[in-house]
């Protein structure tokens, strides 16, 4: 095999690496020492990241990497195509897998969890599916990975195997499987109507093929699966329920893979299947944008009322993901770039927050914010990271959240939608209202909380990842293009979709 075809094989390898890891953890997990088992995860995580990073230069230079494996059904190939948008998400997911794995080892051992083999195996499978759907070249390939992700997440949600977990698991399945099956029906109908399923920047459907009322129905059949996973209200309630799982799972759900896969699905459907023209003319994008606005505001208000830290963060995710949906549905190059970059931004901010919450839980067994008075005295580094992530969440300049929000707001203003812009500004203030009290309470001087007088951080395996992600939240805020050129890639994706060249207003 020549070097060229080998290098085109990279997207397949990126998927396979963690698939093989998952399989070997499943088979070997109970028979080898746990350090060996974790070593499999780390080797796969680093290999995967290396493979994904190695594709960045090609994509930044404006190329694509395509590879078609075989026919998966009559007329449709099982094929991969790496483009700018997929690259951004893949970079985020593969980077965060390394960090979450380090953190998982600290958390799972620190907390002495059961069923760790199943946990690591499912985690690796989730990552395989995520990278697969980043690089999928057509709707069917995408759907296969999307469903694998749904199923592979289920064992993680029900990790504790108790009644509460079972209930959340059922809720999760009900939401995702129903929307997934409707998605399936939509794909079948599109294929029957058009005879193609290949993603194309700017969409491949036209109003001629699908008359108006059906276009809207089809739009929501397809986009439904995405917005359920992304937790757009009123379809969000599985996400807070899934909080029963261990904290690293929440990190996976909220930051690395699952909800992002939902947002990414929406991106693919709206801009690569329907395209801006049809999405606009069938009013699907408008309706979705208003749903997102509604979600952003409502979820922030709910978050303010939650005393459980993880629940508060969960509702914050619901709101933040709707930024991405809104950015997509505004249908401008800038807002799209902002939306794609918000996948990056939110991932780093939210994973920091969750890792902090987990670290607090493992060291002090505190879940509720009201019990965390003065905890900054005991865990200054953790709470420092929490503060950084909170500022980023609120969209302060020089934090990563600012970059994406500014882009989305520029997009909304250029479309003449001041109301959307206002929503984003208001929600930034709301984010401050629900995250800053946590910071303030934890660093309160008086009264001194007897529980937290001495210094005592979580183990290094938990501390280091959260310091790294907090640092990245600042670094990417100052230099959005640092390292992997993620901002350029996001802009590139926006320009490819709308056929515009150049940056600037």
């Amino acid at each position, binding site marked *: 095999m020549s070097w060229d075809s080998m290098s085109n094989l990279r997207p397949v390898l990126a998927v396979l690496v963690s698939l093989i890891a998952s399989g070997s953890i499943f088979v070997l997990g109970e028979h080898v020492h746990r350090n060996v088992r974790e070593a499999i995860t780390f080797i796969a995580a680093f290999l995967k990241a290396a493979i994904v990073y190695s594709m960045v230069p090609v994509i930044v230079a404006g190329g694509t990497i395509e590879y078609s494996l*075989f*026919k*998966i*059904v*009559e007329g449709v190939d099982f094929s991969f195509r790496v483009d700018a948008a997929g690259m951004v998400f893949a970079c985020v997911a593969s980077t965060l897998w390394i960090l979450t794995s380090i953190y998982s080892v600290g958390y799972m051992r620190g907390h002495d969890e059961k069923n760790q083999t199943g946990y690591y195996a499912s985690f690796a499978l989730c990552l395989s599916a995520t990278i697969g759907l980043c690089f999928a070249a057509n709707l*069917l390939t995408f*759907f*296969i990975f999307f*469903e*694998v992700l*749904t*199923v592979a997440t289920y*064992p993680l949600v*029900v990790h504790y*195997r108790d009644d509460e*977990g*079972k209930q959340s*698991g*059922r809720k999760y*399945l009900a939401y995702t*499987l*129903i929307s997934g*099956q*409707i998605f*399936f*029906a939509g794909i*079948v*109908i599109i*294929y*029957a*109507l058009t005879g193609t399923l290949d993603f194309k920047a700017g969409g491949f459907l036209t109003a001629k093929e699908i008359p108006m009322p059906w276009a809207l129905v089809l739009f929501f059949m397809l986009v439904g699966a995405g917005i359920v996973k992304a937790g757009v209200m009123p379809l969000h309630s599985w996400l807070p329920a899934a909080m029963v799982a261990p904290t690293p799972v929440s990190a996976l759900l909220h930051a690395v893979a699952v909800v992002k896969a939902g947002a990414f699905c929406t991106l693919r459907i709206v801009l690569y299947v329907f395209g801006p023209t049809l999405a606009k003319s069938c009013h699907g994008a408008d309706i979705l944008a208003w749903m997102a606005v509604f979600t952003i505001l409502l979820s922030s208000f709910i978050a303010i009322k939650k005393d459980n830290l993880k629940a508060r963060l969960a509702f914050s995710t619901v709101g933040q993901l709707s930024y991405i949906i809104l950015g997509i549905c505004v249908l401008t190059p800038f807002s799209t770039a902002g939306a794609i970059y918000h996948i990056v931004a939110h991932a780093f901010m939210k994973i920091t927050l969750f890792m902090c919450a987990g670290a607090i839980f493992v060291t002090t067994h505190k879940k509720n914010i009201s019990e965390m008075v003065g905890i900054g005295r005991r865990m200054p580094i953790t709470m420092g990271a929490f503060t950084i992530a909170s500022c980023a969440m609120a969209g302060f300049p020089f934090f990563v959240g600012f970059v994406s929000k500014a882009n989305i707001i520029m997009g909304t203003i250029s479309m003449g939608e001041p109301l959307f812009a206002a929503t984003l500004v208001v929600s930034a203030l709301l984010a401050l209202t629900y995250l800053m009290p946590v910071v303030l309470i934890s660093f309160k001087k008086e009264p001194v909380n007897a529980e937290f007088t001495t210094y005592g951080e979580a183990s290094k395996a938990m501390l280091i990842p959260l310091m790294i992600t907090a640092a990245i939240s600042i670094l990417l805020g100052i230099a959005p293009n640092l390292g992997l050129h993620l901002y350029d890639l996001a802009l590139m994706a926006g320009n490819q979709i709308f056929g515009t060249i150049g940056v600037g207003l």
Partner: protein
Amino acid sequence: MKNVPILIVLLPLCAALLSLALSKIRLHLGRDVIITAIGGSLVLSVYQLNRVIEEGPIRYGFGNYKMPYGIEFSVDAVGALIVILVCLMGLITCLFCINFEGNTDPTKIGGAYSLLALLVTGMIGMTSTGDMFNLYVFLEITSLSAYCLIALGGSRGIVAAFRYLLIGTVAATFYLLGVGILYASTGTLNMADMAFLLKKGGHDQAMLVSMCLFIAAFGIKMAMFPFHGWQPSAYTHAEAGARPLIAGVMGKIPAYAMFRYMFCIYGTGFVYFKQFLLILGVFSVIGMFYGSIRAMAQTDIRKLLAYSSIAQISYISLGFAIGNPLAIAGAFLHMFGHAFMKGGLFFCSGAIKYKYGTVDMNDFGRIYKKMPLTAGLIVIASLSMIGIPPTVGFFSKWYLAFGAASAHSYVYIAALVISSLLNAVYFFKLLEKVYMAKDEQLVDRAPRRHGELPVTMVLPIIICFLAILLLGIFNVKIVDILLMTVRGVAL
């Protein structure tokens, strides 16, 4: 190698006839001969498929009689694939049965294996034959051996077998009546000749009546709603070792016969063709819902699987009802997939029964720790039942749904979607039991030092596991072969 089609039938038939006598000589000699014979048939059937792919359908005349007068075997691409399926499932079921022998009475052991071999013979014959009356003969061989195998399952098995016998005889009679009516109006029993004569027209009334009879006859035999009454108790109480073959394959062969009558013999030119498709579609849709809803209420895993079969067999008849090539190919793909899913799940339930003596799902708590391999197959087969990619269940559903979308039958797509979700309800209930319920501390009846199960049980489980995944991922290869036949006859 001209005689391959008949050799495939003769090998298990001869072995079945010899089995009893051989068992008298040495206890397991009969069994070993039968396993070898079915293995031989499997090899030959693969060879036969290759020949069909290269040279087109095989027609084999018995005793060199000229064609419409003699009996003939005619094997097309679909038939050749089904013969492989029957041989493979027959083989692994025989292997599986080794663990359920229970006693050392040579007549009983030899007899039970010869019944299995006869069941395989009958099913291969029904698939291969090109003669309408010959099909009846093989139908009866299949049925009679199935009655006996069901009756071997203890006292409740006898009751179930008797019910099946009554209604099965009605089915056979219906079939014979239908053949008689067609024979009276055309004067031929050869399928190809019949198709040729019917296309000339002028037999519409006779065709209408006999089609009604055929649908009822094959509907009963394949346990399609609303003819399914005998099926749940028969599948539940059949002999534990033989259950995978009975539940996994036996219902599929009449479905193939129904396909041949509707599409190959009657053909799309039949005046009432569309009406029959509609009737079949209505039965299928109701059957999907009915089977799944009844399955939800079961706690006995065998009953759950039996009711789920009613729903799954409806997928196959739904494919016929849609009628375009891809939908029919999807129906056949589902036939193969479902044989391994349902067969596999019955292997699992058999293995659990063998080890812990229970069939009640409430006792399955955390069984995955003790039987990881079995639990793995339960997971993959359940996901395939629901239709999660990349298992075969997803792809057969894709072809069915795509066929329905091309025919603008959006109701069928909705039915498929709802049916998948209903499947999800009870299969995830099963998975919850296996993975999450409280450990019941069951006593291991067959403790082993290495591995969870004997090798003859592990092998069928692994074969089903791989088949579900490989048939899914490489479904295009199968579908291409199926389309060779299906394209010529479908709408």
